[in-house]
């Protein structure tokens, strides 16, 4: 009864080990892709630096307000398995035409504010009315800050950036996607490793238990045999008498 159990646990262990190896292989393949993509990205950044100037592509160009354009969701699945997946919130008004429309809207109220500055003093009623109308320019900075999060990091380095910088952005976007996949695989590898360790120790304890029980059986058989021999000897003695 004990042997099939051991076989079963061995098969399970083999299955897990194969799964572990597969995950490691996949991890290695993804790592290789990530490395080549990063290299490609660096090469494109270097090309952009060459064409734009040494100081034009550096940490000094980072914006003062930076909002993330990509998020990662860590979903915990059954048996502590974690799945990382990236999400890019939909960028509204990313087209140039849409941006143009916004810029026109922004300019309008500002001009109005300047015009009002030169107006002669008004009565109290007029001032109360104008307070209401002056509220509209106050809203604009809020709209502007709403627009900021959607700002493409490419714009930090200028309006007309070289194609190589766009290529660098594309490669790093792919790297970000891949890094989430690699994080998932790493978590899976560590998880399987833990499971393997547990089932290995289980198998070892089961084997030890089986070994000890077999030992006891052996001792039992030996004692029975010796008793039978003693009985035989006694019989022989009585027969001779």
């Amino acid at each position, binding site marked *: 009864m004990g042997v099939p159990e051991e076989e079963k646990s061995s098969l399970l262990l083999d299955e897990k080990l194969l799964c572990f190896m597969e995950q490691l292989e996949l991890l290695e393949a993804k790592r290789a892709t990530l*490395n080549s993509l990063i290299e490609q990205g*660096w090469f494109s*950044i270097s090309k952009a630096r060459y064409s734009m100037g040494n100081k034009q592509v550096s940490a000094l160009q980072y914006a003062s307000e930076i909002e993330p354009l990509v998020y990662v969701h860590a979903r915990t699945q059954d048996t502590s398995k974690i799945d990382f997946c990236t999400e890019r919130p939909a960028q509204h008004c990313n087209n140039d035409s849409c941006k143009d429309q916004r810029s026109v809207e922004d300019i309008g109220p500002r001009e109005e504010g300047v015009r009002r500055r030169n107006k002669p003093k008004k009565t109290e009623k007029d001032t109360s009315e104008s307070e209401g109308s002056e509220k509209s320019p106050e809203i604009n900075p809020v709209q502007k800050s709403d627009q900021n999060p959607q700002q493409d990091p490419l714009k930090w380095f200028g309006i007309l950036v070289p194609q190589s910088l766009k290529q660098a952005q594309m490669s790093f976007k792919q*790297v970000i996607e891949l890094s989430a996949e690699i994080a998932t695989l790493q978590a899976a590898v560590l998880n399987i490793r833990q499971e393997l360790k547990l089932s*290995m120790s289980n198998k070892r304890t089961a084997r030890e238990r089986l070994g000890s029980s077999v030992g006891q059986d052996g001792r039992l058989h030996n004692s029975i045999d010796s008793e039978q021999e003693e009985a035989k000897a006694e019989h022989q003695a009585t027969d001779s008498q």
Partner: protein
Amino acid sequence: MAGRGKLIAVIGDEDTCTGFLLGGIGELNKNRKPNFLVVEKDTSITEIEETFKSFLVRNDIGIILINQFIAEMIRHAIDAHMQSIPAVLEIPSKEHPYDASKDSILRRAKGMFSAEDFR
């Protein structure tokens, strides 16, 4: 916060950080704390370690990307991190190619096949 998802943090050289920020992972939060650290020649190991630990403590960070040569400087801190979130990913840098034998995750996985396990 729950619906928004987590951030990806980077500790790396200038080009690595620039690349990932171009990809759109950068954030400066309300306290003007960034989720990235540009490591230069004069950046101290203590600063790197403190930043790494602060990223570990932040619950809005899901993945930490770190150049492998920088990870080597703070290996003890990386090895001490056992949780799966945030996940720590070691990436190559321009001067130092990726070496799988140095990666803490792969070393942990490799450690499974010790002589003791094959008894």
